[in-house]
């Protein structure tokens, strides 16, 4: 028991840094969180890409089923999410490259880049989806 108590008190005495919950939600913070979430979503989205590519490489009924599924409502919904995740992560990545080069850290530019990431990803997702449906 004494050992457990000692361990607990050690954990209690260790300093804690304030975490996400203590901050008022801000756009720059939301874009940062979204960058990580879209990255993780794209990670698992590769399953969809591999499935489509393997179905196409196999051909016949496998390709027909994959095509039917992706054209269905659920398939289109997944593809819309995939497209948005890819583009959001793409523009978020560009923002990180700008930061890596040492630019865009001041107060105004942080906001411009956050708004820009959101606006660019939403608009290009819609443009690409409309283009795909017109084609």
């Amino acid at each position, binding site marked *: 028991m004494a050992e457990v108590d000692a361990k607990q008190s050690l954990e209690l005495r260790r300093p804690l840094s304030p975490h996400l919950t203590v901050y008022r939600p801000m756009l720059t913070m939301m874009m940062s969180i979204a960058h990580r979430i879209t990255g993780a979503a794209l*990670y698992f989205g590769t399953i969809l890409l591999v499935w489509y590519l393997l179905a196409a490489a196999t051909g016949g009924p496998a*390709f027909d089923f994959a095509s039917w599924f992706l054209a269905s409502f659920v398939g289109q919904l997944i593809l819309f999410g995939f497209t948005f995740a890819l583009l959001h992560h793409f523009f978020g990545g*560009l923002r990180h*490259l700008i930061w890596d080069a040492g630019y865009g850290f001041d107060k105004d530019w942080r906001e411009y880049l956050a708004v820009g990431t959101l606006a660019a990803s939403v608009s290009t997702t819609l443009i690409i989806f409309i283009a*795909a449906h017109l084609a």
Partner: protein
Amino acid sequence: MSHDPFSIRSAAGRVGFLGAAKTGTGDLWRMRVTTVALVPLAIAFVWIVLRLVGKSEAGVRAEFAHPCTAIFLLLFILASIVHMRVGMQSILDDYIHTPRLKEWAIIGNSLFSIGFGVAAIFAVLKLSLY
């Protein structure tokens, strides 16, 4: 074990063998290189996917008959494998605090990235070379 008076490692970190392993910048650099590579490659990927939308099997095969389709897709897949493996590991490092679980998660991450990457590369090669 004598303690370096100039070390910034905490007592708890020293006991837990935590601290710099002296090879920490490899993944950081890999992430930067693949990010730069993926800017044009992701655009190429979206372009290729848009050309494939709604195509029949014969239409898809015709797209893959062009060498650019295979070359850009393969480059996109290779850069993505490295990018997604390093990116997911930073997520696992941040959120998983159970040592044994973290080791398995990191192994699983490598196997997932390489496994699905190889499957995608195989499919592209099969589509392009037939």
